[in-house]
Structures are given as C-alpha cells and as structure tokens.
C-alpha cells in the first residue's frame, strides 16, 4: 500500500490534469486523499490478517476519496477483502479470482461495462490477461490505459461530453493502471 501511495503522490497532478478536459480535474487529489488515509490507517494500527488489510484500505477509500472513484475503488477492495477471507497467502489463480471479484464490485456499483471509457476498461482486460497468461507487465497495462483514449465516454462525468470525450485518456483507468503496476512490482503479478 505504501508503494501505491507513493505512486499516486507522484502522479497526483498528472491524474488531475487528465481529469480536466473530460471531467472536473480532481481525480488525482481525490485518490491522493484516499491512499494517504489508507497508508496511515495501516501504519497506525496494523491489521492482523490480509483480509483486514484490504478492508481497511476499502474503508479509507470509501470515506476519504469521494467523487465517483471512492465508492468504486472502495467496493473493489471490499469485495477483494471478502474473497480473501481467512487466506494469508494467495496463489496466482486466487489472485486472479480476487481481482475479478474486485472488478465485479466496480461493475455492479457503477452499473457500467467495458467500452464506456472508465476504469473498467483497464480492470477487465488486465484481469483477463492475468487469468489467461498468469503474468502481466507494465507495458501491457500502459497499452490498456491508452486504449481508453479513442473511446467515447458513456459513463461518469466524461459522458456529458459525448463525442468530445474522444481523444482523452481516462483518469480512472490511468489510476487503476498505477494500481496494477504496483501490484506487478510488489505482489508478484509478473
């Protein structure tokens, strides 16, 4: 989590900038508030189980991020926490299933699907790729993030732009890309 927090901090301005042309320019700041709170919560009273770690992160994101991203990331982490249950280590297959549970949470909460230019367009192909190949790397993630660029948004704030959302990379997909890259570096997704 500390690694993800650092990555978000480094990219905070970039993420908010991405949110400017097609949203309201706060995505970086929203995420930053959330991950800092999560890191703090984890460091101040370290949870005993892996499931608890994910739950703590979920609650911090839900109660600190706000905006659309808060409930979506929060629900993802909550679902992953539930999937983990009593497990303290996870196999690659279990990690894949856990991420899929997270993805399902996002889809249910946001009532969206692929191709709508949201974080789902990072999560779904990334989870599928990992499930099928057992690996993921940064360049593949970047690839998925970039693929949101030519999409027309139909969900979230960018949807108000219709055609004009085309040609902008989705900030939520970008921050989700950062999450997956952190997982690659720290949780052995590679």
């Amino acid at each position, binding site marked *: 989590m500390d690694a993800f927090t650092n990555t978000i901090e480094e990219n905070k301005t970039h993420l908010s900038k991405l949110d400017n042309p097609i949203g*309201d*320019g*706060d995505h970086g*700041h929203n995420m930053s508030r959330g991950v800092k709170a999560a890191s703090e919560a984890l460091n101040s009273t370290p949870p005993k189980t892996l499931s608890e770690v994910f739950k703590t992160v979920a609650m911090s994101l839900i109660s600190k991020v706000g*905006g*659309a991203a808060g*409930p979506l990331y929060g629900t993802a982490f909550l679902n992953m926490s539930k999937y983990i249950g009593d497990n303290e280590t996870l196999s690659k297959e279990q990690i894949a299933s856990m991420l899929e549970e997270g993805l399902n949470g996002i889809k249910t909460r946001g009532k969206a699907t692929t191709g709508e230019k949201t974080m789902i367009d990072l999560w779904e192909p990334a989870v599928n790729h990992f499930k099928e190949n057992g690996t993921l790397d940064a360049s593949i993630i970047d690839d998925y993030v970039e693929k949101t660029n030519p999409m027309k948004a*139909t969900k979230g704030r960018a949807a108000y*732009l*219709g055609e004009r959302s085309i040609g902008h990379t989705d900030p939520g997909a970008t921050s989700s890309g950062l999450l997956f890259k952190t997982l690659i570096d720290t949780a052995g997704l590679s």
Partner: protein
Amino acid sequence: MKKIINKPENVVEEMMQGFAQTHDDLVHRVGETRVMARNYEGKNKVGIISGGGSGHEPTHAGFLGKGMLSAAVFGDVFTSPTPDQVYEAIKAADKGAGVFMVVKNYTGDVLNFEMAKDMAEAEGIEVDYCVTNDDISVEDSTFSDGRRGVAGTIYVHKILGAMAERGASLKDLKTTAEKIIPEMKTIGIALSPATVPEQGTPGFELNEDEMEFGIGIHGEPGYERVKLQDSKSIAKEIYGRIKKAYDLKDNDEFVVLVNGMGATPLMEEYIFMNDVLALMKHDGIKVVKKMVGDFMTSIEMAGLSLTLLRLKDAQWLKDINEPVETPAW
C-alpha cells in the same frame, strides 16, 4: 490563484465553521462531521437532506431551516461527499418519519448517496431519494448517465421542503419529486472559469473574447464555445433551446430563475432576466414567478444559468412562495 483563503486544503472546514457561526440562529454543525443541520426540529416530519461537492454556495447549507432542508453534507470542493458523511446527515435528519435525499445527477453523488442509503437502511432508517437532471445542455440518453443536476434542484428542495413541513410522507415526496424533475430545464454559460483551491489552476480556459454555452457547475465543458455575445443574443440562444425542450401547451405557467455562477454581478443578472422576459412575453408564455440571484454557484466562475420550471400543479407555486427560515432562500 487569487483567493481570500488560508490553506487550500482547509477551505471546506473553515467555511463550515464560518457558516455555522454566522447562522447559529438557524443551523448547527453535527459534531466534527461534514454535516450541517437545521436547529428547527421538525419532529415526526420527513427529513430532507441534500449535498454534494462544495463550491456551489449558498447551495446546499444555505437552504437549511424550517420549511426546507433538514441537513446538508459538504463534500470537498467539486467532489461528492463520502457515504459515511451522507449517512451522518441521514441520521441527523431522521425524526422518525424517514429521510428523503435530493441528489444531483453526477455518478459520484449518486454512488455515494446510494451507499449511504444502504448504510442507513441497515440501521433501520427508511430512506428514499430522487436524482435531479435539469441541465439540458447535455443530451439525455438511456445509454449514458444522462443529464447533470444543476440550479433547478433548488425548486425540488423548496417544494418538497414545504410538503414535508405540512407532514407529507416519504412516498408523497418521491411522487412529487418525480413529477417536478422532468418539468425543470436549465442551461448555463460561462465567461470565465473557477479554480478549485486544492488544484490551484483554472478548470478550463477561455480567451478574453470568448464565452461558452452549456457549461456545467463544475466547469464541465459545454456544447459550444463562441465569441462573447450580448445579453439579448445569449438569452435567445439558451431560452430558445429550453423552450424547444418543452412540449408547450397553451396555458402553461412558468417559474423563471436567472442564477449567477459566483462572480457575475447582479447588474448583469437583471439585464439578462429583462431580455429573457421580453422573449417570453413575445412568445406569449405566462411567467408567474421570477427569481434572480446566486443560488447554485461554481465558486468564482463568471456566468449564469437560466432555469425554467413548468408548473404542472398549482400547489407547486404556493409551496415555492411559502415562507421559510433559512440563511439563503
């Protein structure tokens, strides 16, 4: 960024403290939460809450008080409040008859208010809600998230507030809200952008001779950027679009609201209202109530929005005119 503030990350906290102290005869802050509640108890009445990102002052807390809102949640600037905070507002507003939430149609607002509703229902509080979407500058479509909720929302607050005060049930409020919402239509324009304090740079840029039609209250891009037009031409454009969006009947009666975006002087708002009323008179459209002022702002954006509300029910006008005790209505 030129603002009279202290630390950008503290603006909402300090604004809440200033607001609570200024209006301590009418409202109070709920502990250290992001929730402001009215002092008037309204026992056994349905509580009405509203909220969203900050930066739209006097919305939402300005409408707290007898005859209007029970509690208001303050998100960060232009950012939906979190579910735990909305839940606090629900708890503060619940006086035994349930709580009705007025939500503006933004993905973030809808998601966070829905999560709060789940939390409250788990604790046995009955909650229902409506989602306002009066901004017709954005295409409505069942395939997307639909239109944004903007200045028209204040009429939902007002009419439901009067009803709740008279003892209406959650279900009554829901039914009326769903009748009002399709009857209100708004388009906004901007002459210059707002700056979110924590971000420090304007949300968009407009040249010295440019304006934008259809801008959102968070600076979301509008439908057209043009050279600055005069008030009459602007009125023609946005009133014209709004009019077309109604299927007008002969005896239709309207409420008209010219709402300033924050930095626009009243002088310009009244001039613009004058131009709108001239067009409506020319069209033979009956206006039974006019309002001019800053009700739903976008921090220091220069610009305004025009809202029309068609009165499908004569009671609505009575409810709009019903006296209230609030800081800003």
